[in-house]
Structures are given as structure tokens and as C-alpha cells.
């Protein structure tokens, strides 16, 4: 009986050891860098990671932020596809880097690029766990709200050894947010606003509204909009609304985005449609197509600063007279990616859709 129990004990111990095995052993030497990522994980590096890989879904947010650092541009060695159908902005920034892989690549595939660190969105934990098993360091980013940008730009700066640059970038957004919030407070009566995403996938047309916690809603609210769709039950994803509902709301302003279609064409279709003409927003010319170049600007990638100002101007024009958005965009690309005005005119301006003039 005793031998039997001892044997069982050994098995239990062996299994627990294997199951509880933690591949991330702490550094015995002096750790040079410790960062806390978007999931509150502490990740330590003895040296600045030289080979950075960005993987999984939702990569455009992380990639565009990383490439705003010169060190980021040097150290990115491979990334998961960032093309949303209108071309690859990443290719424009790094034409020599063609190690692009699928968004659903496996841990093994990612490992074959020999990363020193892999950057993932916070919802890619399955993939992160697999990389953990291979002792490949993972840092999670969220970067969907203003607060997250402030925190995580600094994290990125630490990761790249350039905290100064991070502060410059963070200050850019802080300035915009401060300005907009101040001017929004001065609005006596907030107009009603509807944010619509037009999708025509699978051949069926659908108008969708975003959840209230997403960046799209947050930015419109900050700009002074009274969100009409906050009253209906919303899912954790785009919620389809039909025209009747839109007519019932009859908002003062409509912001329109279309990730996979030409937003100018879509807006024209609606403006020509007698049904939509009955809406006060369309009738009064207050339906606006959100600017889109490589990416639609309503998403929380680096351009959201311009988008924030753009919403604010549409909602509250008096406070933003003489704002030239091409100039603002120009300044953005110069600050973030070191572009000359010529480059903006050559690369972005020709493909720019939306109400930006």
C-alpha cells in the first residue's frame, strides 16, 4: 500500500511539474528593461530587442505606431498583413521589407523569423500563449483610446530605447484632445449625430453602428456629438440598423464610413436617394464621408488625431474656422513619418476619399 501511494505521489508531482512549467524564467543577471504591457504583464529584456515582429489580427494599429519611431523602422523584421484592400501603407514606409505573413500564421511560422519580441493586440492571447511556450517574449498592445495611446506610446518608447520620441508623439495627441475637449465644453446644444458604417459584403447592403466603447463612438462624443444610437441595445460588434430606425432618429449629422467600398460613391448614392433626402442631415448637407487613404481614418490607428479634429469641425464649425485638413494631414505625416509635403501630395492626396477640403 505504501509503495503504491508513493508511486501515485511521484506521478502527481511529475504531472504538476510538467503542467506548471513556466518557460519564462526570470533573468538572473541585471535586467536592463522592464515594461508593463496593455494586459498589465511585466516583461523584462536584458537588451533592447533588435528583431521585432508584429503578428496576428489588428496589426495596423501597432505597426503604424511602431514605425513612427526611427528605431521601429529599423528593427521591424516581419509583420502580418496590414493591407485593408486599398494598398499597404507599410510597404510605402518600408519598401525594402517584404517579409509579410498571414494574419492567422501559427506560432511556429512566426518563430521562423527569429524574433526577439513579438507585438500582439490584446485579444490575441491564444497566439501569445503559444509563443510563451517557445520562450519568445510577447508584448501586448491595445491602443484604441486616448489613455491607451498615452500609456502605450511610452511603453513602445521604452521598448525601443527612445522615450523622448514617445513623449513627442504622446504630446501631439494630448494637445489635440485638450483643444477639442475645451471647445466642446463651449457648445450650448449638442447636435444629434449618427455614425454609420456601410458594408456591402456578401452582396447584401447593411448599415452598422459601432458599440459605445469603441474608438469611433468615443471620438464623436468627444467632438461634441450626441450619439443617437446609444439608446438601442448594442452588441459587442457592429450592430445592423435599418433605414426606418435611421429615419426615426433623424439625426442632425451623419458620419459615413465604408471600409471596403469607395466612400464618396456611397455618399453620392445616399444623397441621390429620395428616401435619404427626406432626412434632415442629408437635406441640410450635413452628411459627411470620413476621409480614407490607405485606411479609413475612423479607426484608432495613428491618424486618429486628425480624425478627432475633423469630427469636431463638422460638429462645431464655428470653433474650427480656417482649419485646413490637408495641412493638418501634411503636418501629421511630417511629424510621425518624416515626410516632405511633396510626398504627401504624391502618395496620399491622389487616393484620398471623403469630405476633406
Amino acid at each position, binding site marked *: 500500500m505504501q509503495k503504491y501511494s508513493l508511486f501515485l505521489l511521484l506521478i502527481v508531482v511529475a504531472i504538476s511539474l510538467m*503542467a506548471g512549467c513556466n518557460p519564462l524564467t526570470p533573468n538572473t543577471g541585471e535586467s536592463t528593461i522592464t515594461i508593463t504591457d496593455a494586459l498589465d504583464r511585466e516583461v523584462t529584456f536584458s537588451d533592447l530587442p533588435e528583431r521585432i515582429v508584429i503578428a496576428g489580427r489588428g496589426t495596423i494599429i501597432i505597426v503604424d505606431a511602431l514605425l513612427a519611431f526611427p528605431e521601429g523602422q529599423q528593427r521591424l523584421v516581419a509583420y502580418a498583413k496590414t493591407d485593408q484592400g486599398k494598398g499597404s501603407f507599410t510597404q510605402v514606409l518600408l519598401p525594402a521589407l517584404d517579409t509579410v505573413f498571414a494574419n492567422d500564421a501559427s506560432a511556429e511560422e512566426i*518563430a*521562423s523569423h527569429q524574433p526577439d519580441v513579438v507585438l500582439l493586440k490584446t485579444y490575441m492571447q491564444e497566439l501569445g500563449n503559444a509563443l510563451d511556450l*517557445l520562450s519568445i517574449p510577447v508584448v501586448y498592445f491595445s491602443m484604441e483610446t486616448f489613455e491607451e495611446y498615452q500609456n502605450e506610446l511610452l511603453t513602445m518608447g521604452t521598448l525601443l530605447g527612445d522615450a523622448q520620441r514617445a513623449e513627442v508623439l504622446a504630446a501631439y495627441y494630448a494637445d489635440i484632445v485638450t483643444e477639442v475637449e475645451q471647445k466642446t465644453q463651449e457648445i450650448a446644444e449638442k447636435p444629434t449625430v449618427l455614425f454609420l458604417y456601410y458594408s456591402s459584403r456578401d452582396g447584401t447592403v447593411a448599415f452598422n453602428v459601432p458599440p459605445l466603447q469603441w474608438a469611433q463612438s468615443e471620438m464623436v462624443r468627444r467632438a461634441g456629438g450626441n450619439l443617437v444610437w446609444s439608446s438601442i441595445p448594442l452588441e459587442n460588434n457592429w450592430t445592423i440598423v435599418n433605414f426606418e430606425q435611421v429615419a426615426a432618429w433623424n439625426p442632425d449629422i451623419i458620419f459615413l464610413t465604408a471600409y471596403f467600398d469607395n466612400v464618396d460613391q456611397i455618399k453620392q448614392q445616399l444623397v441621390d436617394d429620395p428616401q435619404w433626402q427626406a432626412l434632415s442631415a442629408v437635406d441640410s448637407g450635413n452628411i459627411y464621408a470620413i476621409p480614407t487613404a490607405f485606411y479609413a481614418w475612423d479607426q484608432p490607428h495613428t491618424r486618429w488625431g486628425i480624425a478627432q479634429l475633423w469630427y469636431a469641425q463638422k460638429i462645431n464649425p464655428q470653433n474650427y474656422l480656417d482649419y485646413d485638413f490637408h495641412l493638418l494631414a501634411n503636418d501629421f505625416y511630417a511629424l510621425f513619418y518624416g515626410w516632405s509635403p511633396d510626398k504627401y501630395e504624391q502618395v496620399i492626396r491622389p487616393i484620398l476619399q471623403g469630405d476633406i477640403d
Partner: protein
Amino acid sequence: MSQDSTKSSKTKGLLLLTALLAVIALLALFFGRYPSPGITNPFALATDPLGQSIIFNLRTPRVIAAILLGMALGGAGFIFQQSFSNPLVEPGFLGVSPGAAFGSALAILLFSGQFFLIQTFAIIFSLGGLVLSLLIARIIPDNNYKLNLVFSGIIVSALFSAGLGIIKYIADPLSQLPEITFWLLGGLWSAAWPRIIPIILPVMASFLVLLIFRWRINLMGLDDRVAFTSGFNVKKEKPLFLFFAVIGVALLTSIAGIVNWVGLIVPIISRTLFGGNARFTLPASMINGAIFVLICDTIARALFAGEVPLGVLSALLGSLSFLIVVIFRRRKAL
């Protein structure tokens, strides 16, 4: 005597299959996308800790999971086909797979990330699906119990599918929904040691039980009255053996999602080779299942950069194999 020679040739066949499985498993360990798509040079691994880590932490548990999954599906498929005297049933049809799917999706929705709960829910709803099917079959007022089971299986599967649809509707599209959707197509991409280790013992125990009683399992295919006079307690033993068959499937489904076709086609092929006697064909079906899933899974993870859902490959290879078997069957094995 002809009986002895049949026995020994079948035994040799089983040994051959086992050897084949061992060889394929070994090859699978050295095949993947690191450091580049194709075969991993074992000698280069000596100086490559990342490569070693991939083999040990990613591929080995995955190969083991594939083998266990194949054995569970092959074994349960054979037992189901025997019990219902119907070569067109597979382990999923009595609400086992849809139940596991529903349970896992529910757990992903409620407790996303907590794998232990996902597995538990999968097992509970999987066995629940089986129980529900058996109960409904009893309630249906008709004496043809086997036909009733087909009906109740359809009903229970439909119920769980509807529930699943609702869950997909509610799920978070960025984190939960892709997981649920991918998982429904089947895949062993999450088969790491922490998930495999807890289930190895119960799964192997269930296999052991089924193999030990494999002669008795032949009785499951008999008419109830005939089985009764052969000493088989139909009311107790039949559900018991079905449960043991289902346990392995439920546990592995909680890791691998729904993988169709294996439980259907592998027993049929095994019967072509080894006849209908569970004494040889149950182990044969299990080993064949392991080989089948192992090949599918190795292709699934190595063919492209991203994972191909296992269910897609098993359907593809399964239907091709089925076609070949049907066209070329020598014995009327179907």
C-alpha cells in the same frame, strides 16, 4: 485451421499498423514550418534551442493530441456503427459533437480564456447530448428504437446548433468569435501540454476499458433479445459502453473542436481490411483513426503559414477515401 490463420494474419496486420503509426508520428515531429516549410533537420536542432522548444512544446503535444483524437473517433465510430447496425453513423450523431461544441462555445463566451472550464463544459454538454438523445428516443412512441435514435440525434443536434448560433451572435467578434468559429471547423492549434496532460489519463483509461471488453462489444450489434440470452445486460451495458466510447470523443472535442468524417470513414475502411469482429477491428479502427488524423493535422499546420482547419482536411481526405472504398470494395464491407 483456417480460424487460426485468420487470427494470426489479422494480428500481424495490427502490428503492422502500429508500426506504421509510430513511423508517421516520428516523421510528424520533424515536419513543420520552422525554420522553413518542410522537414526539420534533427542534427541542426542540437544548436537551436528555439527549434528544440518548438519540437517539444508545440509539436509533441500536438502529435499526441492528434493520435488520441484519431483513436477516440475511430474507436467510437466503430462502436456506434456496430451498435446501430448502421455504417453511416458517426460518434457525433447522437448529439455528442454538437453538444461538445455548444458547451465549449458557451464556456468561451462566459469564461473566455479559462481552458479548464471550457473542457469541463464540453464534456458535460457532450454527455448531456448523448443522454438527451437516448431519452428522447425512448419517448418517441414507436417500437423501432434504432430509427428513433436517428430522429432524436437529429433533434438534439439541431437544438445545439441553434444554441450555438445564438452564442456566435453574442460573442465578441475580435477575441471570442474567431475562436469559436475556427474551433467549430476543428483544429489542434491549441494542443499544448497544459491542455493535454489533464486528459491523457482519462482518455487512455477509456480506451483501455473498450479494448478489454472488445469481445463483449460485439454483442452490442445483436438484436436486444438475442443479446439478452447471450448474457448481455442490454439496459445497463449498452449505455455504459456508449459512454466509455463517448468520453474520449468529448474530451478531445473540447480541445480540437468538431472534426467530421474520421468517425465515419475510418471504421468503414477498417472493416474492409479486418472484418466486422470488434476483437480485431476495434483496435484497427483506433490505430487507423490515429494515422488518419495525424496525417491531416500535419498537413493542416504545415501546408500554409496559417492553420488550415482540421475539419476541412478531414472532410477532404475523408470523402476521397470514402469514394475510393466505395468504388474498389472487394468484400462487401460497407
